[in-house]
């Protein structure tokens, strides 16, 4: 038996090696390099050899291992199940602890500029994830063009702030409103489509918005982007070392030393509050009739129709509200960067946000946080390996789908149940 197994595994790993050679031979092994404006091929056989050997040996051990596992055939313990059970029991305490941690985070000793930037980025993605969770998780509409609303929010914030000089707190709701209106505008014709068609159409819309931003030079400055977007102020007190004549700044008002970190910390709290508002809104709206209609529609559209729920209007509200939160996040992005260009709103951003929602477990608010920390952390860890980090990211997407097709927190409790829990 054992000999047979080894023989079979060897054969299999030989086959794997051949396939790996075919896969990596031309693309990795023959790198095209421009020399004197003519492309020449630079062989890199050693790398290919390493990869092929790795694949073949890896395949061999996987075969042996999976055979042994098959013999044992125990109940596989699932990390996700453990996590979700744990969260079920201690959910409320953990949520409070997590919020408390994020509130004191900027004053932790290790929270320097680098960590703060990562924290702000993660918070932005968490907010976007929570916004998109309304569309994907609650209403079950796969939106692959969410970044369009992010872009609309960012550009409308930037344009209003630059041309009219309005403050952040006026522009923020306007940006959200614009993004929401775009959501209705784009959603209206397409929301009756089935799942994967809808996905492609939303993707097309996302790209259309980007192409529009790229080519409408008079309004958006095209690929040059918009510069000089006003920074947010602390209720009218700007964060500047050398303010204009007669303007009181944040540090003089509070009698502090000037420190550029003050602005960063303020931005951090800003996005924290925005994200928590998104979360609170979602938790509340799930219990309202419209939220329940979303979830019902996700489960069975025909049943909903026969119960008198208007699917189009219901989906449209989800789309518009999701878009609105995307717009809020967009205006935060614009004010944080002070510079936006269509570069920031490519399809890959949409893919990242969708990945966050789906990998977290659709409809799970905690799942969004976990998968953001995991995915954005992954991208961050691989930062030094510039082009490999997205390979790792895509690979993680595939792997999570294979091992946990419903996401990290797959268990989905109905929001409203009949009986004593009600």
């Amino acid at each position: 038996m054992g000999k047979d197994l080894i023989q079979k595994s060897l054969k299999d790993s030989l086959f794997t090696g051949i396939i790996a050679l075919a896969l990596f031979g031309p693309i990795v092994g023959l790198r095209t390099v421009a020399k004197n404006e003519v492309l020449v091929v630079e062989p890199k056989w050693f790398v290919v050899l390493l990869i092929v050997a790795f694949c073949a040996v890896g395949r061999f051990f996987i075969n042996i291992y999976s055979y042994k596992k098959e013999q044992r055939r125990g109940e596989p313990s699932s990390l996700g199940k453990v996590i979700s059970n744990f969260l079920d029991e201690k959910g409320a305490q953990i949520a409070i602890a997590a919020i408390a941690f994020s509130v004191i985070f900027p004053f932790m000793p290790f929270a320097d500029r680098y960590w703060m930037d990562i924290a702000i980025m993660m918070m932005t993605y968490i907010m976007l994830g929570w916004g998109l969770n309304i569309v994907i998780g609650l209403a079950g509409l796969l939106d692959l063009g969410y970044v369009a609303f992010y872009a609309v929010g960012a550009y409308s914030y930037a344009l209003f702030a630059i041309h009219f000089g309005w403050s952040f707190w006026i522009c923020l709701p306007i940006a959200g409103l614009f993004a929401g209106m775009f959501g209705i505008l784009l959603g209206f014709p397409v929301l009756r489509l089935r799942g994967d068609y809808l996905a492609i159409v939303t993707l097309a819309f996302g790209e259309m918005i980007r192409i529009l931003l790229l080519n409408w030079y008079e309004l958006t400055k095209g690929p040059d982007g918009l510069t000089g977007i006003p920074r947010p102020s602390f209720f009218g007190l700007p964060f500047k070392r050398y303010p204009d004549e007669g303007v009181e700044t944040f540090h003089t008002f509070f009698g502090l030393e000037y420190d550029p970190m003050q602005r960063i910390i303020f931005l951090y709290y800003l996005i924290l509050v925005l994200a928590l508002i998104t979360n609170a809104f979602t938790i509340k709206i799930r219990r309202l009739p419209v939220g329940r209609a979303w979830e019902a529609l996700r489960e069975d559209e025909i049943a909903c129709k026969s119960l008198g729920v208007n699917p189009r209007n219901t989906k449209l509200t989800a789309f518009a509200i999701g878009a609105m939160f995307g717009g809020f996040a967009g205006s935060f992005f614009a004010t944080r960067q002070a510079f936006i260009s269509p570069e920031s709103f490519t399809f890959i951003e949409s893919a990242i946000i969708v990945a966050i929602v789906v990998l977290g477990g659709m409809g799970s608010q905690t799942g969004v946080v976990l998968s953001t920390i995991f995915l954005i952390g992954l991208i961050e860890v691989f930062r030094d390996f510039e082009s490999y980090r997205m390979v790792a990211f895509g690979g993680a997407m595939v792997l999570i789908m294979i091992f946990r097709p419903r996401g990290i927190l797959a268990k989905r409790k109905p929001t409203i149940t009949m009986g004593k829990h009600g």
Partner: protein
Amino acid sequence: MEYFLQQLINGVTLGSVYGLIAIGYTMVYGIIGMINFAHGDIFMVGAFVALISFILFALTGISLPIVLILVLLIAMVFTACYGWTVEKLAYKPLRKSFRLAPLISALGMSIVLQNYVQAAQGARIKTLQPVIQGGFNFFKDSNFVVTLSYLQIFIVLVTIVLMAIFTLLITRTALGRAQRACEQDRTMTALMGINVDRTISMTFIIGSSLASVAGVMFVMYYGVIDFYIGFLAGIKAFTAAVLGGIGSIPGAMLGGLLIGLIETFWSGYISIEYKDIAAFTTLVIVLIFFPTGFLGKPDIEKV
């Protein structure tokens, strides 16, 4: 009139490329009901394999017709390996999973392929010296000379030949029958003693080879490629598949042709900056007014 004719020629050429990619989408959708989002990137890999082999063959001095055939074959074989592997790794484990899982997995695979090629081949655009030059000129007396290049003839001819072989394969061979049976009912097909897994693998292999031929043509026609070409070409070919009616193979060819024509006429007469918008708008309009495309079967929803 001359300008129109020129656009028509260019459009048919472009349409051939899209049609070949669209077949891959339509076949996979027909057989396992998922949008193979990574298919555009398979096309991109095909273009890269073609580029590398063209460069290598340029050193050997083999005559052009043999080089063309060899490059086509090499691209088909190596790209088919990619299609096969992607299916085995990313889609097969998810066959019984819920609706969105394969789509997300395909999305991940698309990101992996793009960035892997970028890492292995570099992010800069690659230029290939023209392989086939020259052509016929018409209307030499008028102020707009219409050119029909040999390359365009080659592209259209190869497409027609491949489509003919492919149609025969689907309608006349055992494999084609098995594929059509899998499309209708996979469980039942398995009960009839047909290896469903192998049939699905073959579908991916055929689809990827056709996409790789499109890649060869793309690199010859435009002479410029980078790791990102698969994304746009993929969406447009998908649009073509939807336009023709997803699941229908003649529909994919027709749709590809239409998308190619729409795009060329749009950039010829309206605006070249917004040429991608033409394809996207077509997609939206088609899906709203003919959700099943021109040659697709109507989709009846049951409780």
